[in-house]
């Protein structure tokens, strides 16, 4: 069978199997081609992408002070390194001498002397490659990764602190809030899930009530509520808006994490618990050493999905006046110099969101495949 015949057969089977199918194909193919053509022609002729490129800094860091730009770049560098290392957990890095990385750093330094932004960007890409390859070279680093994230995030907070928390913004802030909220909501979520399965009826009722009420309320309301209540609780301490918003996210998403964890706990056969009990382990020992490690494997993909959920809801922080990536875009839109280029700006923002979501989804899929290995 030749290629042409194969193609004809594929078309007949997948596009013209029935009159109805043929009608669908004949409607949608020209429609798609027309729309795609219009989009391409527009983006190469009418579209003025300088509305995006001129405001790239606003998109990335919001109103971060110009003279402290290196701090923002350095924190992105740390994020890239840690992100690359995390990627190394799920995507096996190649074993070859680090020529590419060293070359990348040299090129980045060379470029940085001419155009700092390009140099920094290249340095960040290289850093993520270094993290990725490093994970393959020294597998022992895996255990230290959680510690690395902790130190890295504290380091980033210290790097960015001199600018003042109210000046954090743009995509950088979106990423930081996502990371912190995803990490901090896990301990509370696990506690709630364990409480919901506790032997004590009181703990069960309280945890179930918390989870159900939180899940019945909109996040935007929780964030706003925490924002107004926090200053009443700490009258002497001025808590920055970003910390209050973060607390709202943690309280809200902990309820969701609790439900994911609960489904993971339920997936552990009760024979495991009974076997552990018959060996004389205490209930806290059983939870820690028997149930949680097995549940983690089931819960992990859902928790990565939760990271994407958090990232996609960070724009709600507009309600307490924070400038995340989306609000930065809205700021660019109301700017009269670039405001008329609505479609360019929205297209750019959609593309960035999709790109980040694809990375997270890809990681989640790989993680799922990895964890499934050796699973009954």
């Amino acid at each position, binding site marked *: 069978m030749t290629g042409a015949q194969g193609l004809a057969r594929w078309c007949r089977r*997948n*596009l013209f*199997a*029935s009159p109805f*199918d043929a009608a*669908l*194909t004949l409607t*949608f*193919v020209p429609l*798609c081609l027309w729309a795609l053509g219009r989009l391409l022609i527009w983006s190469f002729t009418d579209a003025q992408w300088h509305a995006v490129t001129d405001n790239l800094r606003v998109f990335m860091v919001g109103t971060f002070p110009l003279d402290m730009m290196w701090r923002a770049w350095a924190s992105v560098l740390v994020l890239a390194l840690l992100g690359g290392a995390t990627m190394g957990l799920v995507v096996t890095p190649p074993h070859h001498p680090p020529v590419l990385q060293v070359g990348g750093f040299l090129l980045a330094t060379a470029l940085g002397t001419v155009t700092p932004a390009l140099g920094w960007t290249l340095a960040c890409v290289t850093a993520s490659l270094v993290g990725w390859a490093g994970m393959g070279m020294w597998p022992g680093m895996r255990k230290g990764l959680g510690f690395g994230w902790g130190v890295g995030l504290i380091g980033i907070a210290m790097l960015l602190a001199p600018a003042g928390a109210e000046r954090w913004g743009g995509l950088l802030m979106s990423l930081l809030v996502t990371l912190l909220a995803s990490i901090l909501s896990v301990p509370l979520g696990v506690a709630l899930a364990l409480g919901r399965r506790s*032997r*004590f*009826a*009181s*703990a069960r009722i*309280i945890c179930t009530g918390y989870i159900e*009420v939180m899940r*019945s*309320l*909109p*996040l*935007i*309301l929780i964030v*706003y*509520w925490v924002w*107004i*209540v926090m*200053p*009443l*609780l700490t*009258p002497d301490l001025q808590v920055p808006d970003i910390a209050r918003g973060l607390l709202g996210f943690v309280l809200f998403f902990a309820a969701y994490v609790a439900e994911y964890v609960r489904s993971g706990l339920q997936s552990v056969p009760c024979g495991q618990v009974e076997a552990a009990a018959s060996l004389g382990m205490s209930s806290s020992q059983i939870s820690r050493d028997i149930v949680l490690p097995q549940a983690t494997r089931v819960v992990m993909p859902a928790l990565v999905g939760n990271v*994407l959920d958090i990232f*996609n*809801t*960070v*724009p*709600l922080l*507009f*309600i307490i006046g924070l400038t995340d990536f*989306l609000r930065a*875009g*809205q700021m660019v*839109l109301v700017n009269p110099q670039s405001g008329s280029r*609505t*479609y360019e700006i*929205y297209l750019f*923002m*959609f593309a960035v*969101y*999709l790109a980040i*979501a*694809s990375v997270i*989804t890809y990681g989640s899929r790989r993680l799922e495949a990895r964890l499934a290995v050796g699973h009954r």
Partner: protein
Amino acid sequence: MDRVDQFALNSQIPADTLSATRTRRQLVRAGKQSLIVLGVVALIAWFAMSVRAGLAHNGIGFDMRFLSQVAGFDISEGYAVTAHGLRRITPSDSNAQALLAGFINTIKTASVAIVLTTLLGTLVGMARISHNWIVRQLSFGFVELVRNTPMLIQLVFWYFAVVLKLPAMADASTWFGGVIASQQGIFFPGVDCAPGATLASALSLLAGLALLAGSAAHRKRRKWLLGGSLVALAVSVATGFPLMVTAPHVNGFVVTGGFSASPEFTALLIGLTVYTAAFIAEIVRGAIVALPKGQWEAAAALGLSHRAAFGDIVVPQVFRVVLPAFGNQYISLAKTTSLGIAIGFPDVFNVYGTVANQSGRSLEGVIVVMLAYLVLSWVISGSVNLLNSRLLRNGGTR
């Protein structure tokens, strides 16, 4: 452990020691329980005291009387509930009326969006498993695009980049013989009372509709109910049909007649419908794929066509499975109406924001709004559960 072994073990321990151990254990458990309760009560008490102290620090007390005070601000759309029915909300209405108007807007948006999103989502879900390659790819792209970008960016996109970019009222063209789409809103043909309507025709129309609804619910007496409804409708037409269709008319800058949807409502409705439809589509697809292949094969062996197998074998089973998952999506949709504040739609959260600004009662107002959302969530999950249990009962055991 075997029952015999246990007996042997127990028999070596005196009975009173055993019961004493049990009592001690029970006491310890009760002690732990009360410690948990005490801890939580203490936490809540600390929280309430701190909030009180914080409020006192700022010179305000906890006070719900703001609800009966005059709102004093304008709400772009919404109704006040009075003893004489609904009327347009005005700035002289109370804060409670304003919040209620917002809540009605929330309910209105959520209920229309739930109907539309179920239809669109089911359609896309079926397209996801279509035999047609291009339809499959398009629906896959739609679902991925919608699920992987924030709802808020979709909402502001629909509002600022689509609805507000529609032509102005003067240049707006009329679609399908009566729909006007302009940046001032979308206008549909509506149903209104005909001028020559008589009581008899109105009553017979109502009776006909009631019988029609009854015929859908009662399978056994369907023929009789359907016949009765036809007779009643015929009487209604003969005595002068009480309703008429009114098409919207543009008079300068004002549109009269028909239903109107404000730009904010339109954008929120489209945003919610499209966003939730992607999730509904995945639920539908998952349920169809999860159906045992034997069902399809058995239908094919009986000589049913692909479409007949789908309509008569697959769909009835799928809808039994997906309803609880749909319910979760409906609740999430109802909660997401709160994003209307980003485009200025006066839903309950948006109205609350204005009330809190005007009266300074943000903390008291939040309690009211939280209650509103809790009630909404519970009503939706309650009705889905009810529907689900009825569906399962009608469908027999499974």
